[in-house]
């Protein structure tokens, strides 16, 4: 079963190695020991969250604000978990816990497709897939941290790797009116916060501002649309 799953996910594993190694290098730059990198990588399994911790830590942001930012960005897992829940209706509580607790974005995509197809795929296969990807990600990040301790990477360049990753993730979002409003509002709010001196809370506060403005915009425009239709 493991070989069959590896044959399915090897391209994802290669990507994990390519992204995980630089991620581990940057984590090493924050002063994390390899054991810390392994512990964090193999429990978080979210590149954006790990890059975020490093980026905000290097920028001197307080721990509470970093945790709030990571929690905000990780709330997307709630969506994945919610959408995979109906496909785990026949699974035991223990199997549901195992699959949900180890969910990653890529694993979610593959598992959901296989569960919908329904052919020879169940919670057990989903869990093994998750574990394979978590092990690949954890090992890649740890290797990166070990290599990064030997090779000196300037902080500004390492930090820009995070920026590049966030740009990629931003432009991978669906291009809809609400998403554009949320993104622009969030970015403008960060600039305003920073110019007003609220650097520590700029990111989490701006995420809330972005969501609130996008929802308000939807309510106003949809309300107007409904009125126009009448």
């Amino acid at each position: 079963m493991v070989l069959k799953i590896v044959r399915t996910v090897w391209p994802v594993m290669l990507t994990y190695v390519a992204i995980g190694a630089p991620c581990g290098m940057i984590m090493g730059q924050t002063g994390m020991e390899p054991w810390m990198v392994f512990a964090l990588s193999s429990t978080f399994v979210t590149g954006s969250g790990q890059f975020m911790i490093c980026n905000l830590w290097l920028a001197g942001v307080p721990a509470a604000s970093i945790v709030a930012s990571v929690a905000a960005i990780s709330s997307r897992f709630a969506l994945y978990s919610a959408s995979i829940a109906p496909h785990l209706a026949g699974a035991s509580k223990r199997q549901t816990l195992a699959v949900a607790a180890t969910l990653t974005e890529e694993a979610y995509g593959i598992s959901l497709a296989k569960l919908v197809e329904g052919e020879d795929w169940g919670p057990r296969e989903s869990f093994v897939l998750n574990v394979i990807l978590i092990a690949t990600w954890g090992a890649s990040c740890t290797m990166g941290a070990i290599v990064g301790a030997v090779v000196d990477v300037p902080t500004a360049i390492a930090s820009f790797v995070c920026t590049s990753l966030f740009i990629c993730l931003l432009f991978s979002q669906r291009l809809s009116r609400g998403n554009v409003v949320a993104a622009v509002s969030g970015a403008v709010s960060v600039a305003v916060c920073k110019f007003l001196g609220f650097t520590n809370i700029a990111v989490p506060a701006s995420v809330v501002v972005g969501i609130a403005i996008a929802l308000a915009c939807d309510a106003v425009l949809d309300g107007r649309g409904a009125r126009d239709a009448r």
Partner: protein
Amino acid sequence: MPVNEFLVLWLSSWAAIAFFRVAPAFALRGRTLSPRITEALGYIPPAAFAALVANDLVSPGAFDAGPWPALVPWIAAAGVVAVAVKTKSMLWCCVSGIVFYIVLSLI
């Protein structure tokens, strides 16, 4: 990073991530999220990633050292945007970001 601070960061963040991963799978067995909540959750990634990019690029004192050093990350970011739109590849975006940043810093 001191071990105490690492443990606080790691365990607090992990608790939040684990909650988001596990809670809906159990809470929504046989149920679905309301459209309003789904919509709000869906806006988190664009708002968060845009906020993070802005947080990296906007610096009130950036022009103190002259216009060029302040413009380097903005121009490099514009290059990465082009690569992101074209390829949607995290790997290519990271590689191109490093290359743009180093080349522009050398000018």
